């Protein structure tokens, strides 16, 4: 039994079937990559895993239990979804890194936030920068940090490296590796990036709502 699984997962919008009967499983501390053409249902699949949508039929299981049995809010703190094209909240970088603390009513740990910034090649000096002054790559990395201020058990990354230059991409990869090896975080990575697809050990493809294993760990 994998840490996160789906069984006969289907999602329809009206008459249109967007996710078709997906059986998927990922083990703890694994890294899996999902690719597929635009509009094929990858983000929809991610939202189903993150409990942001309810399946039309079938179910998602986390640590052996249907996710409907968990409290959605605390589930999402364990299975954290970094959305495609995120927006930053408020005015400063600080407000964004504070957000995860605010929602679980903890006081902000500035040292921890600075360390987090360093894992993606940013630093203490960036903490009070205006959101509007950040480059696209910096925004993307800061958005991503919000998902890991408290270490989740599963991290779902929806095209987080799309549009980044190689340096920014590298720092994101470094961060993913760090959480995966140091904290045994399971990573589900959705991508169009050729390099990432080539390097993926465990690769799935979603086309037209159907999932196929392209490269396995067997």
């Amino acid at each position, binding site marked *: 039994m994998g840490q996160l699984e789906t069984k006969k997962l289907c999602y329809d919008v009206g008459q249109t079937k967007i996710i078709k009967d997906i059986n998927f499983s990922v083990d703890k501390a694994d890294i899996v990559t999902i690719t597929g053409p635009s509009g094929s249902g990858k983000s929809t699949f991610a939202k189903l895993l993150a*409990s942001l949508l309810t399946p039309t039929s079938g179910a998602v299981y986390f640590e052996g239990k249907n996710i409907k049995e968990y409290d959605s809010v605390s589930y999402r703190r364990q299975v954290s979804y970094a959305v495609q094209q995120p927006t930053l909240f408020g005015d400063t970088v600080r407000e964004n890194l504070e957000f995860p603390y605010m929602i679980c009513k903890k006081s902000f740990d500035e040292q921890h936030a600075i360390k987090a910034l360093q894992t993606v090649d940013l630093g203490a000096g960036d903490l009070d920068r205006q959101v509007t002054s950040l480059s696209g790559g910096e925004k993307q990395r800061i958005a991503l940090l919000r998902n890991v201020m408290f270490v989740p058990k599963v991290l779902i990354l929806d095209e987080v490296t799309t549009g980044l230059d190689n340096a920014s991409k590298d720092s994101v990869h470094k961060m993913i590796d760090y959480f995966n090896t140091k904290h045994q975080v399971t990573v589900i990575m959705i991508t169009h990036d050729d390099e990432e697809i080539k390097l993926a050990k465990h690769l799935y493809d979603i086309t037209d709502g159907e999932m196929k294993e392209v490269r396995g760990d067997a």
Partner: protein
Amino acid sequence: MHNLIVSNTALALTGVFVLFALWIGYKQDLGIAKSLIVATIRCVVQLFIVGYVLKYVFKIDNWLLTICLILIIIFNGAYNAKGRSNGLKDSFKISLTAIVTSTIVILLVLVLDGSVKFIPSQIIPLTGMIVSNSMVAMGLCFRTMSSMFKDRRSQVMEMLALGATPMMASKNIIRDSIKTGLQPTIDTAKTVGLVALPGMMSGMIFAGADPVLAIKYQIMVTFMLLGITSISSIIGCYMGYKSFFNRYAQLIK
């Protein structure tokens, strides 16, 4: 009240203004003729009915009847607020709660401190004022909320994805909706007396009351309106945001 003389002929003469509006509408091809005629007829019929009902209720001066009338006003208000809600789920229940709460709070305060007596000729117009303002504020809140949940859908979803509760994810929307609900009352309070003399004050002055007494009442009414719109906007928004989420804390389509 010797100052108040509205003869039937005078009334009929002001009806000429309606014909004027109709003529403009026709000339400019505004396509408002039908709704203008309906509005005019409704205005006359509704006011006549209300006038006679009030005359009767004031004469009888029975508390049970007064309360019945208050309830009718409240239900009507909630029903109207629901109509302005863009199909927000539970909007009737929410408006009813907000209107009932603000009405009870305000009436209780005013009756207990003696500024208003529990007699139909004071309580009923006051309830009407409270309910209609509460209704307008709720309508504004509901509409703002619906459009903001549409515009900021992806941001709300992002916050949910980070583990925010629906309430935290809606915090900004709730705040902005309350602000919108309060705005007209605040704007009016700022210019009161400078541009237009408000209805109640004008009415008292028309009827020959001392302007200073009239402004005292007006100040009371302005404070009251601020109270009503705050209470109803807060209740409306804090109950209303829940309609945008299901039991799994997911945004509803």
